[in-house]
């Protein structure tokens, strides 16, 4: 009933206004030209159009034309017309009234819309402001939920990806999705594209939150009348806010990481210095005792050289431990340069001279080996560890063979001894830290673990095997790459 009055009352008000105009203009009859009275009726229609809208204005156009005919055009109080000319007046009056009501209501409509838009823009701006200040994901979601509910009467559901890219509701909340929705949500997340589910009640809009680097989630907005452009705008605001939170997080993590790494590397440096200083003293003093000018009796000289050997072993152990700590903490930056592999082999053989004394070493290099790109310092550690291992597990005076070959994409370096070989069931484990080939020999097995870390950092592979002819082999590869060109004029 109320609905009916609210629909019809503007029309009634319009008709009343026309009647009022008729009443007020009655005294003017005979004193003013009828054309001017027409103007007053048109004015009434304009006012009705502005105040009440298009439909009452159309009604008023017809009513005022009829009233003008009835009350003003002779013969009065009848719809009859004496002068045919008045039909032109009626026609013009009706047409002008209709056009005016149409134009005026158009203006009114756009003014209303502009007002609405301004309101929405202001609301969006407020939302943007509060999202910019949000410091947690929860805050972003709650602010947006509040905005959509209060300003647009839309209901919001949010799904955010976990670290494994699985879409989940905000922690601590539950989100109900029907079967079609949960299907759509995943395709929207995989291929960011807005989808409208019109058949749902109420209709639902599924909008991806598109971040700069990756999708940040999916929102579902439901309302009887969906304001799609506004919802899309809200989604992009949310995505920006989530992006910002993500990058703040990343920056903080990086800062933390830098601080920890700096700490770790200074601890390692201090440790290395503090351990090596007493070792140097121990080693040097034992060495001095054994000098010929001291002329020690033989048993004491042997003691001195045993001391010296043990100090050296301790030093190697410390070196390996520190290397392992550096490699594992990711502190090592490869300083790769193009260089011949012979050079690092030569330097390693010189360094390992003492451990190789009891063995005959053969180096077999393929002809015309290209330059390889590697970190010479780290590769020297690999060679020294391999040589030391090969010597340790081989019978005295046996041969050790170091071979470098090349196939079409890698250089293959293998070191074989004539020992008892690796335990067949442990060919993989020997590269694990603290694993040893043969338990009765001494030494903590860190050497091969370091070798693997270095080789893998260079993009190569390292394997152990026991050849059928006996002994043990460790083989590793280095990628060939494209060596830099040497200017031929300078070579000539």
């Amino acid at each position, binding site marked *: 009933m109320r609905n009916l009055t609210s629909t019809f009352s503007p029309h009634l008000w319009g008709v009343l206004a026309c009647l009022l105009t008729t009443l007020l203009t009655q005294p003017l009859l005979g004193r003013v030209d009828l054309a001017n009275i027409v103007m007053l009726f048109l004015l009434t229609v304009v006012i009705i159009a502005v105040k009440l809208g298009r439909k009452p204005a159309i009604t008023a156009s017809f009513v005022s034309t009829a009233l003008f005919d009835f009350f003003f055009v002779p013969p009065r109080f009848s719809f009859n017309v004496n002068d045919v000319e008045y039909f032109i007046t009626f026609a013009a009056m009706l047409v002008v009234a209709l056009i005016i009501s149409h134009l005026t209501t158009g203006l009114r409509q756009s003014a209303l819309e502009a007002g609405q838009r301004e309101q929405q823009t202001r609301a969006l701006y407020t939302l943007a402001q509060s999202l910019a200040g949000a410091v947690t994901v929860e805050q972003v979601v709650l602010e947006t939920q509040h905005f959509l509910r209060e300003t647009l009467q839309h209901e919001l559901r949010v799904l955010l990806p976990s670290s494994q890219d699985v879409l989940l509701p905000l922690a601590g909340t539950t989100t109900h999705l029907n079967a079609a929705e949960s299907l759509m949500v995943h395709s929207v997340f995989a291929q960011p594209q807005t989808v409208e589910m019109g058949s749902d009640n109420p209709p639902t809009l599924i909008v991806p939150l598109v971040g700069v680097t990756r999708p940040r989630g999916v929102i579902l907005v439901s309302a009887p009348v969906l304001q799609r452009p506004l919802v899309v705008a809200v989604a992009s605001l949310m995505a920006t806010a989530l992006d910002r939170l993500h990058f703040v997080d990343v920056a903080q993590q990086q800062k933390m990481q830098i601080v920890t790494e700096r700490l770790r590397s200074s601890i390692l*440096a201090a440790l*290395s*210095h503090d351990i*090596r*200083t007493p*070792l*140097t*003293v*121990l*080693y*040097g*003093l034992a*060495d*001095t005792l054994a*000098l010929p*000018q001291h002329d020690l009796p033989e048993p004491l000289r042997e003691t001195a050289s045993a001391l*010296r050997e043990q*100090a*050296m072993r301790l*030093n190697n152990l410390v*070196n390996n431990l520190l290397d392992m700590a550096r490699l594992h903490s990711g502190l090592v930056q490869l*300083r790769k*340069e*193009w*260089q*011949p592999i*012979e*050079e*690092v*082999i*030569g*330097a390693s*053989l*010189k360094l390992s001279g003492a451990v190789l004394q009891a063995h005959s070493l053969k*180096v077999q*290099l393929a002809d015309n080996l290209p*330059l390889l790109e590697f970190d*010479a*310092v780290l590769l*020297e550690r690999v060679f020294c560890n391999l040589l030391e291992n090969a010597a340790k597990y081989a019978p005295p005076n046996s041969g050790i063979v170091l071979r470098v070959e090349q196939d079409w994409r890698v250089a293959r370096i293998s070191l074989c001894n004539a020992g008892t070989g690796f335990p067949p069931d442990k060919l993989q484990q020997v590269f694990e830290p603290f694993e040893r080939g043969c338990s009765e020999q001494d030494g903590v097995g860190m050497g091969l673990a370091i070798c693997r870390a270095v080789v893998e950092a260079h993009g190569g592979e390292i394997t152990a095997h026991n050849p059928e002819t006996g002994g043990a082999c460790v083989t590793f590869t280095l990628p060939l790459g494209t*060596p*830099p060109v*040497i200017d031929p004029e*300078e*070579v*000539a």
Partner: protein
Amino acid sequence: MNTVLLVEDEKEIRRFVRLALQGEGCQVSEAETMTQGLQEAANLKPQLIILDLGLPDGNGVDFVQRLRSWSQVPVLVVSARSTEYDKILVLDAGADDYLTKPFSVGELLARVRALLRRSRADNELNTPVVKFGTIEVDLARRLVSKAQQSVHLTAMEFKLLSVLLTNAGRVLTHRHLLREVWGGAHSEHNHYLRIYVAHLRQKLEDDPTQPVYFQTEIGVGYRFQPQMGQVGFSQDMSA
């Protein structure tokens, strides 16, 4: 008698180094700090300085830089740091050689002898002819021979050889060698240097994979190491 200045803050290390050097017939004077070390170096005019990199009142690199402003005395750096970057810094500042702790007495004495010989050679007349092993190099006439057989070197190879020979016993960093031989424009072409050193080894060494004279200091540079008693420097100079 040679005077050696030992700048090292660790008392026990000073003790065994002093013992070793005295056994070698050197007079040893000691300093614990950088300031004291620089003063002693000015007062004593030693023939050799053995320097620890980590001194309580300053960095060994500063020491070498300040020393080099008025003295060319050979400096042997002894360092517990094993990172190649530190070694390169101090060598580029003007140090002659380095030893990483821990080191054997034999190694120390070999380096000391080589540097002392260098120190003497600097004070005497230079000769254009250098002999090591079976190799004879005439720097003036640009002639190289191995076991009486003439060896052909390209212009660049000869230039590299002469820089290495005139700095016998010193560790020359990659950057230093590139600058001396190729000029500043090639400071990024480390692989040039490596290929030319490989050429020299192929032409002059008996076993290029286990070089005796042209030694690699991995990650740092190269050193020309004339073998003990085989060096032509002193013989020729006294002649």
